[in-house]
């Protein structure tokens, strides 16, 4: 494989633990993966799988108190895990930026959106007021906001959900970061708007040569837009591989359950919605064995006593963590 200097992001054995009233909560455990330049990777999982905590930890935005981070996050060679705030601040905006889930809460409600974009440009790039305003209007146009010069003076509350999210994207892109972390960027938006925003992200990624980490619970979102997918459960990676492989050749039963539980248009009407029985585990009570075992239809004794490690699958780059994986010959595709 290529050496680390070509990779944009190298995450190695990253763990994030919260100190709570009920004991230590390991929200993320032993996560490792790489990201190259100009690549989009999807991180998928249910609520509570640790995917949001992972994205925040990678970025260095985890809360400062009662949190322990171990492992390494190398962003373009810069170590982000446990770095000082000052160090991280240098990289935020210019190297890596984040698009948050709810644009109503991630934008300052009492400041005009133009000013919120300006701020990044003036503080991080040192632009003058006029230059910043001009560039802000350019950015608004880039993200597809009609009459940008006029909208420059709007308050977030005066815009629709989709527009607000575009503004958030504009802010994230303002200083041309090489890596964009998108944490559930379309959850909470209308379905039609979702597609627009995702297409916008694709387009911008191409134009600006960025890499994107797309965090979501919705498999439909990652199906066509990512080159690789990471599936998380209970804070760990349970399957990772090329998107095609994960969809067609998945080995871990949880992945299958996830896939089956998304309603498909191609299903006949009145098809029963498939759900995964049970609920995500309580991370305060770590048990031996695989975290998914209580809910898994294929669980064996070993699954309940030994925790499976990631093992390579048939295709390159494909790994999964399961003692009793689904057969490998399902849906063979031309690689």
């Amino acid at each position, binding site marked *: 494989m290529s050496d680390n200097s070509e990779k944009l992001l190298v995450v190695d054995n990253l763990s994030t633990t919260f100190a709570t009233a009920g004991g230590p909560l390991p929200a993320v455990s032993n996560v490792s993966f790489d990201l190259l330049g100009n690549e989009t990777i999807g991180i998928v999982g249910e609520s509570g799988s640790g995917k949001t905590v992972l994205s925040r930890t990678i970025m260095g*935005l985890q809360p400062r108190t009662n949190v322990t981070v171990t492992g390494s996050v190398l962003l373009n060679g810069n170590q982000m895990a446990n770095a000082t705030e000052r160090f991280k*601040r240098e990289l935020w905006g210019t190297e890596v*930026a*984040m698009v948050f889930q*709810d644009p109503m*809460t*991630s934008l*300052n*409600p009492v400041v005009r959106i133009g000013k919120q974009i300006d*701020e990044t440009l003036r503080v991080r790039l040192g632009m003058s007021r006029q230059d910043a305003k001009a560039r802000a209007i350019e950015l608004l146009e880039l993200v597809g906001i009609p009459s940008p010069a006029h909208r420059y003076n709007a308050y977030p509350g005066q815009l629709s959900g989709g527009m607000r999210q575009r503004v958030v994207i504009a802010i994230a892109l303002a200083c041309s970061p090489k890596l964009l972390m998108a944490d559930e960027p379309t959850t909470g938006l209308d379905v039609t708007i979702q597609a627009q925003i995702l297409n916008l992200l694709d387009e911008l990624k191409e134009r600006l040569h960025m890499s994107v980490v797309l965090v979501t619970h919705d498999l439909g979102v990652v199906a066509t837009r990512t080159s690789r997918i990471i599936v998380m459960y209970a804070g760990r990676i349970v399957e990772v591989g090329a998107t095609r492989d994960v969809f067609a050749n998945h080995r871990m039963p949880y992945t299958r359950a996830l896939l089956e539980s998304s309603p498909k248009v191609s299903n006949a009407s009145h098809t029963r919605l498939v759900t995964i029985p049970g609920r995500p585990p309580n991370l305060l009570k770590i048990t031996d064995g695989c975290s998914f075992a209580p809910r898994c239809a294929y669980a064996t004794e070993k699954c309940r006593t030994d925790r499976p490690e990631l093992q390579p699958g048939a295709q390159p780059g494909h790994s999964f963590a399961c003692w009793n994986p689904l057969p490998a010959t399902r849906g063979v595709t031309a690689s």
Partner: protein
Amino acid sequence: MLRYVIRRILMLIGIVFVISVGSFFLIHLLPGNIAAVIEGPGASPENQAKLFKLLGLNRPIYEQYFVWINHVLHGNLGTSFITGTPVVQSIRAALPIDLELILLSQILAFATAIPLAMRSARKPDGILDRIFSAGSFTMLSVPPFIVIVLLVLFISVELGVPHTGPSSYVSFASNWIGNLQSMALPAVTLAVGSFVVYYRVLRSDLIATLQEEFITMARSKGISQRRIMWRHAFRPSSVALLGTAGVNIGGLLAGGFVVQFLLAIPGLGYTLISAINTDDYLLVQGIVLVVSVGVVLINFLFDFIINIVDPRISRE
């Protein structure tokens, strides 16, 4: 926005009207023959009857009110029977002193409360935070009159400055240094009470605001902590502070009399107490009217300022 302002002004006029009625009836609710009361004890029946007619007290009550309100709108609040000076003059002499006292104490209070609250909110449960939170909570339980008495005790006992009696107030116009000296103790006393409230309100609001998502987003833009505190966190948090300030300042106008009375600062509060003690009802009525209207105006002003800071309120 304009509609909001107009609506508020109309409410203002309504409230002021009601206050004027209340102030007017304040005298008329007193027990006894009103003329005898005003004229004072020992007045002869003929004088009382003359006064009765002079004051138009034989007219129906609502007519009296309109006569009175007409006078008021022309700036005539009557002439005190006790001191002989027009009420308006007494008020005009006393009001600026109140305003100066309020101004000085609030400047002190804000100048200390805001930076300290910002610091504490940045590092909650740090040493600074713990000291000031505990301290301010304790001070909440110490009423202003105790603060004064203890301060005076401290100054006279510890610093050896003899406690001679009421300090002599020096007006600003004649000697501004002397003025500030004489206003120092009352201003500090009032500032302490205000500081405690402002610090606590701002701190708790800031801590809540700092947990909002847009602060995390601002962090992710690579902006410095200081800028985040002042540019992003302060403004939404200041709404509660402004609301508290409005109520507090209104309270100072209406209730600053203890401090004034104890230290012989001839503001409205002092004048009011003296008037009550000397049964100077016209002066009492006049001051009540002016102070009430003043409090309402202050609240109105602060509502307006809050609206500028957080435009969402007028849109709701």
